[in-house]
């Protein structure tokens, strides 16, 4: 499944469009960036309520397919700008992380 399919099927909004044709290899839910850094791999989708610019750095470092910001949290302009510069897919959902994870799981994405 590609990021663009995920956007459609899990009803996500696209806050920053990088490359939506990237394949999704798995998903991870965490709000501690040190934990995300240690436990995600290339192609992963990361669901979080964190919005600090550092999330973009983590996504590029681990070559994540996309960040999904849950609970309708709005990232700061600086975060969005950094994501645009780095070509990182930043998606949004009004649902809390648990619901987003549930939707992805139902779509066949496993950790």
């Amino acid at each position, binding site marked *: 499944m590609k990021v663009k399919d995920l956007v459609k099927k899990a009803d996500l909004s696209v806050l920053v469009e990088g490359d939506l044709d990237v394949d999704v290899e798995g998903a991870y839910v965490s709000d*501690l*960036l*040190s934990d*995300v*850094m240690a436990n995600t791999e290339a192609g992963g989708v990361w669901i979080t309520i*964190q*919005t*600090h*610019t*550092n999330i973009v*750095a*983590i996504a590029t470092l681990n070559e994540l397919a996309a960040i999904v910001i849950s609970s309708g949290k709005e990232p*700061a302009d*600086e975060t969005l700008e950094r994501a645009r510069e780095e070509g990182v897919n930043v998606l949004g959902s009004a649902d809390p992380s648990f619901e987003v994870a549930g939707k992805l799981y139902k779509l066949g994405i496993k950790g």
Partner: protein
Amino acid sequence: MPVFRADLHVHTVLSPCGDMEQSPRAVVKAAKNKGITLLGIADHNASENVPACVEAARRAGSVTVIPAVEVASVEEVHILGLFPNPADLGAMQGKIHQRLGDDKNVPEKFGYQVIVDHRDNVLGFNDRFLLAATDMDVDTAVRYIREYGGFAVAAHVDRPAFSMTSQLGFVPPAPTFDAIEVSRFADPGEYVDLGYAVIRSSDAHLPGEVGAAYTELELEEPTYDELIMALRGEGGRKVVGYSPTIKVMA
């Protein structure tokens, strides 16, 4: 220029996790015994005991209190705000009160939040849940600290909880903060590439921990202004050393 020792991150009985022995007189006495001249009093999201510590230090002599507060950002990152005087700290405190939730402390579960005078008499209790996070993100908290005339330090950046590193992955290079703080367990030298002055402090919650970690600074005299000059590397004032690094087994 003479060298002074600074421990800029010490809690009092106002912090719910602070020991009941951690009174203004005990803190000042412990600092004096350890040769600490600049003593930062920083409680969690609160600062009611700063005036008592200032007065206790004035009476004891040889210790200068730096008014401070340890703000918890919405990401649960701890940030120290150092201030030139209690009035400027008070303005920041007003902002923290606005941005902290209305939850009440449950002393039996989290600890008592005791407000005292300089003779250690109990004046009352802070009933807010001070261990909570404010709703200010890191950048907003730093902006307010600076706006109210303070100096913003990323607290205990090497620690596995409530630090930039644990919550937000890493410390961005300068100028996100004005300086960064490491604990007694990290080598300050590992952080110099980030472009910040690095301090080391004890984060003491018990009198026995006060001065267990400190920064050595070359200053004309032990004042807030001279301290800030040293941390900015101005006028020949500078950080010249630290208490030893404690090695822990991995």
